[in-house]
């Protein structure tokens, strides 16, 4: 028997001819933070909604803490959910919103205990001073914090986050992302987070699952997902890659003057396309170099350099800004690659 706290077993959901979920299986341990990442229509939100009970399934089983909840109504599941759209009840203050779930369990939660709990959670999300504000008096970020407090107030078995940051501006998004992680670690709530933003997923989760066509392509820690993608889709979807034509023999190939090895799942021999990360490439000014700098983009401590190669292809290299300072457009350069295992499709 699996030790997983949450188990999605072979779940499937079709919308007409569209397969939103096509036999997805996913295990989440207690207290773990798992992010589901994927392009639109890959089925990540459907999976989350199925766990919340908001989406009926065609097939499969959902087990939480050893109990089969596949057919349990959403109001009996004890899941806290934060939605992409602002979902605070507009006629209630922040405090009333947080207390709503507790009130529904009125016989269990006396009003003074309710007030204590909501106060506690408002403090946790840093909005104690806004307890009497109505949703329309708060910013988007504040509303999502209150929504988070509301979802956590009922001490959910699983916290479900359905792209809660996507409606916010960049700065607030990063702040709230870090805060979600802090709170999750503090409370130890098992969390499933759905997003299409890889930076968000990689920056926050214990494990990230990349989905495509209703199935998991790979689930692994952010570092493993990035460094050792299992499929070409994962390699291309997570992070930036350069596509370089190579000739592979016995799991080895040569690119930019370096002999590189292939990752498991790659082709083992013949012609293929290597997916090389920009940070694995180094660009150096050299009079005899056959590459030409097209443009550079300054990104703070790092800099991205776009180089045209003699065969007409174009690559992106990422390096420390100080190393790229002399690389003006038109500069002749040499490109070299670090010795990393690379996925070749």
């Amino acid at each position: 028997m699996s030790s997983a706290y949450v188990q999605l077993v072979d779940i499937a959901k079709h919308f007409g001819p569209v397969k939103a979920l096509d036999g997805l299986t996913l295990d989440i341990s207690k207290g773990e933070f798992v992010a589901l990442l994927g392009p639109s229509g890959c089925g990540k939100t459907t999976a989350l909604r199925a766990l919340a009970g908001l989406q009926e399934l065609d097939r499969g089983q959902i087990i939480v803490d050893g109990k089969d909840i596949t057919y349990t109504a959403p109001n009996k599941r004890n899941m806290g959910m934060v939605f992409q759209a602002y979902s605070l009840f507009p006629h209630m203050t922040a405090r009333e919103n947080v207390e709503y779930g507790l009130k529904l369990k009125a016989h269990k939660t006396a009003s003074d205990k309710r007030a204590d709990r909501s106060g506690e959670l408002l403090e946790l999300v840093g909005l104690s001073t806004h307890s009497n504000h109505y949703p329309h008096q708060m910013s988007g970020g504040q509303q999502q914090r209150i929504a988070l407090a509301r979802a956590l107030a009922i001490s959910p078995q699983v916290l479900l986050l359905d792209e809660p940051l996507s409606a916010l501006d960049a700065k607030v998004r990063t702040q709230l992302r870090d805060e979600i992680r802090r709170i999750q670690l503090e409370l130890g709530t098992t969390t499933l987070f759905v997003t299409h933003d890889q930076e968000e997923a990689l920056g926050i989760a214990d494990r990230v699952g990349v989905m495509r066509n209703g199935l998991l392509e790979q689930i692994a820690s952010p570092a493993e997902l990035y460094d050792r993608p299992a499929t070409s889709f994962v390699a291309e979807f997570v992070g930036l890659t350069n596509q370089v034509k190579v000739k592979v023999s016995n799991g080895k190939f040569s690119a930019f003057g370096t002999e590189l090895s292939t990752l498991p799942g790659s082709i083992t021999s013949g012609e293929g396309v290597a997916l090389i990360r920009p940070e694995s490439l180094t660009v150096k000014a050299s009079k005899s170099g056959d590459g030409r700098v097209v443009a550079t983009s300054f990104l703070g401590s790092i800099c991205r350099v776009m180089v045209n190669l003699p065969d007409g292809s174009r690559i992106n290299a990422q390096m420390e800004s100080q190393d790229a300072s002399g690389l003006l457009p038109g500069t002749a350069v040499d490109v070299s690659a670090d010795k990393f295992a690379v996925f070749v499709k």
Partner: protein
Amino acid sequence: MKPTWKVKLWRYTIIGIVGFYLLLPLYSMMDFSTKPFAFFQKGRTLDAWKVIPSQPDLAIAVFRSLITAVIVMFLILVLIVPTVVWVHLKLPKLKRLVELICLIPLAIPAIVIVVGIAPLYRWISINITESPISLSLVYSMLILPYTYRALSAALDAADIHTLAEAARTLGASTTRMMAGVIMPTLRTGILNGSFIAIALVLGEFTISNLLNYKTFQVVIAQIGRTSGNVAVAVSLASILFVLILLLAIPQKKRQKEVLDVDVA
């Protein structure tokens, strides 16, 4: 940017014209209802207004119409609101069909409706009740185009789908979700729809008259046959009453908003 004097002048001119157009009939009614009964007498008199309370059937007709309006409001709350919400939440594909059905009462003339429902009302008056309050059934159908629009607009504005799902995941049953989240969120829409319905019910004449029920408007028409001044005075009073009711909605909303800002 402050509007220039030309823009201001233009605005006030338009407001003036519209105000004149709307208020002129009311002024004329007031003028007519305060004229002496005898055409050769001069000056002003409130005689027509003074005899209103002593008009036979009037008080009871007003009472009946108000009760009918209250029942219609009740039907809106228990029948129409849940239906419209359910269609929006669970059967969005039926939205257009329901909208079309709700518009039918606008397209069919009242006389046609009466011909259609007369046998039913004959049966009702023989077997159930002769009370004009049973008119609330046909009225709740007549007000559909207006209440549906008001509710539908409120539903579209509030992202009711997400709110309903949020309430469900927090542990609310369907009934508690409707009562605790959906209804309060749609409060303004429901109020708007209900007040339009009240105005319509209090002003309806054709159907109640053709079905031989003595409602407020039917009695006004009766009074009109004996004394024009009194009928006009009663009409004006009823218009003012409904006007005050209608004005009460935005007033209430505005007060709440001011209150909210104060809290901030």
